[in-house]
């Protein structure tokens, strides 16, 4: 029989019943859009429109409108790409790795975190298309026969690995997310009153009826998908880091990159989840579902991954000195004290020092402070990629090639485009789809809620009813 330690605080508070869960989550989907939502959506559409105009000009005129030059050939485009892909790692981490570890607190946040993952990967992919300069040639990255205009793609190249990694990651995450959505779509379908929503949710619920057989298969494939997504999510940022690590640029050519990038990705992803969830829980009144316990647990993950990132920075620096390669040494020394010293120290402050403040329990459980640190972490992680990319490139082997990079309004405008896209998609998601996985929350409600105080799980309940011990172990997981 399942036994929950009474010392632990319940995951879902407020003594919710199953019907309450349905009601609390579906209410926002069924209600007409609020004024706040409309304002937020309007604002993100304006941002998106401005960004789209900048992007259109970038593509019309060519990449010359960016601040790139012969020495610094990658700058904001790839910085933004890596930044967004990194953010896109938290959703799968929460839904897959925490599922394998049987962390039940994931159920309240996995839906929104996975949605964030999908939208972040879309934003990342948009930078890949942008930096191609000629996006209509994007299909050249696919392994198509020579008749299509080029040779076969070079399968030895990490850039091609990246094409496969990102597209597989995106489509598998989308499938995983959708499978989790189906039972909840069915719930909304069965509550729907209008013909349109009944048809729409009914179509996407695909005739889900919640039979025991279907649920058994559902749980089985969720487990396999989690098992597949776990190495997948680690492989994606590993391959992204190999885009740099397999080159011979001092500052990029290091074996530490894969684990260091993965830790950084989880770090920034959790910070973004915090930002989004802290707003969502207030706007949608989900304080009973996303509790302080959840926020604190995520802050612990941020501290852990932030520390890994900090150790990686220091190791990298130590090896640059201890390794005795003068180019490597110069690259790192130049990062710290060269013309981009401010970017380096912004990165160090935001990523290494700020998450350490979460060792204090009081600060971990402070919502305003958590929100502030999450923003700081995301700024820091953006600077990390900027530092890695731009400072390594701007000092070439030949001093006459040395140059600086400064962004133009189109560099900035294209970055703004990705924010517009991200928030437009997230707002649409949060209005038209359930932001919390109802079925999974209901499944952990019994064993974790404050609903039945005497219930150290079902044992007390079974005794109350006077039935014999059950033959089947319910919560054997």
């Amino acid at each position, binding site marked *: 029989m399942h036994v929950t330690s009474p010392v632990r605080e319940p995951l879902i508070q407020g003594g919710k019943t199953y019907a309450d869960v349905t009601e609390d989550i579906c209410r926002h989907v069924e209600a007409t859009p609020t004024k706040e939502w409309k304002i937020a959506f309007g604002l993100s559409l304006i941002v998106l429109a401005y960004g789209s105009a900048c992007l259109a000009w970038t593509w019309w005129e060519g990449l010359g409108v960016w601040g790139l030059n012969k020495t610094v050939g990658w700058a904001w485009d790839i910085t933004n790409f890596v930044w967004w892909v990194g953010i896109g790692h938290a959703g799968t981490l929460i839904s897959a790795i925490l599922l394998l570890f049987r962390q039940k607190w994931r159920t309240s946040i996995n839906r929104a975190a996975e949605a964030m993952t999908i939208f972040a990967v879309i934003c990342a992919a948009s930078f890949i298309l942008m930096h191609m300069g000629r996006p209509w040639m994007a299909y050249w990255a696919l392994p198509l026969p020579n008749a299509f205009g080029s040779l076969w793609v070079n399968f030895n190249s990490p850039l091609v690995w990246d094409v496969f990694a990102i597209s597989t990651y995106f489509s598998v995450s989308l499938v995983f997310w959708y499978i989790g959505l189906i039972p909840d779509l069915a719930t909304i379908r069965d509550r729907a009153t209008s013909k349109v929503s009944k048809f729409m949710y009914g179509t996407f619920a695909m005739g889900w009826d919640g039979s025991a057989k279907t649920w058994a298969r559902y749980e*089985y494939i969720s487990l396999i998908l989690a098992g597949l997504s776990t190495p997948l999510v680690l492989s994606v940022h590993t391959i992204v880091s190999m885009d740099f690590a397999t080159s011979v640029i001092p500052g990029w050519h290091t074996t530490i990159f894969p684990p260091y990038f993965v830790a950084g990705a989880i770090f920034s992803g959790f910070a973004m989840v915090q930002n989004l969830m802290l707003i969502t829980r207030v706007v949608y009144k989900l304080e009973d579902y996303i509790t302080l316990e959840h926020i604190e647990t995520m802050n612990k993950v941020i501290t852990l991954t932030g520390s890994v990132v900090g150790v990686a920075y220091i190791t990298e620096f130590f090896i640059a000195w201890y390794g005795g390669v003068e180019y490597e040494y110069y690259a790192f020394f130049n990062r710290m004290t060269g013309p981009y010293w401010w970017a380096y120290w912004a990165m160090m402050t935001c990523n290494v020092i700020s998450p350490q403040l979460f060792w204090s329990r009081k600060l971990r459980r402070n919502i305003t402070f958590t929100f502030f640190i999450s923003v700081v972490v995301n700024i820091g992680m953006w600077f990390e990629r900027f530092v890695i990319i731009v400072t390594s490139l701007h000092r070439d082997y030949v001093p006459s090639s040395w140059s600086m990079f400064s962004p133009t309004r189109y560099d900035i405008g294209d970055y703004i485009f990705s924010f517009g896209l991200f928030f437009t998609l997230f707002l649409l998601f949060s209005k038209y789809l359930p932001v919390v996985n109802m079925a999974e929350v209901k499944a952990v409600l019994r064993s974790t809620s404050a609903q039945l105080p005497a219930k150290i799980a079902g044992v007390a309940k079974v005794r109350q009813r006077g039935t014999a011990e059950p033959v089947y172990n319910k919560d054997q997981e």
Partner: protein
Amino acid sequence: MAELSGKYLVGVYDDDDTVLHAVPKLRKAGVKIKEVYSPFPIHGLDEALGHPRTRIGIAAFMFGVTGCCCVLTLMIWTMGFDWPMIIGGKDPISIPNYIPITFEGTVLFTAFGMVITFFISNGLGPGTHFHPRFDVRATDNKFVMAIEMSRNSMSEEEIARALKDSGAEEVNIKQF
């Protein structure tokens, strides 16, 4: 999903533990249960109902092997035979460089193959019936047990009593 016909007795429970304990009790009493519908997965319920263990894992493995072979074949053929080139001083066929894409391809085939199998084996798909057929609350907060009368030799009253005794809060009759 196959169309339903005939007469069904529908037991509605309000608790997942109750329905889990009711299933073996009813089966012992000789009631043949068609299926139980619930708003969330109940661990052990499919075993209690006597459903065979799902074989979808075997299908997933097969899809994975297929994906692995397809992707590896594509790379070896294009790089080694169709247009061989020496890149970075490596052999035209250099397997270590192919590992990342082989892995991604395996995952992609497994995930999609498995999910499509899942949809087909459960009869899920767009355009299938738009409502749970026994009780609409099965996706909200009720646990619904369906018993097909034509498959049971016991009388309606007997089954209804057994359902009530096992903790059902309502017993309804559904005719298709």
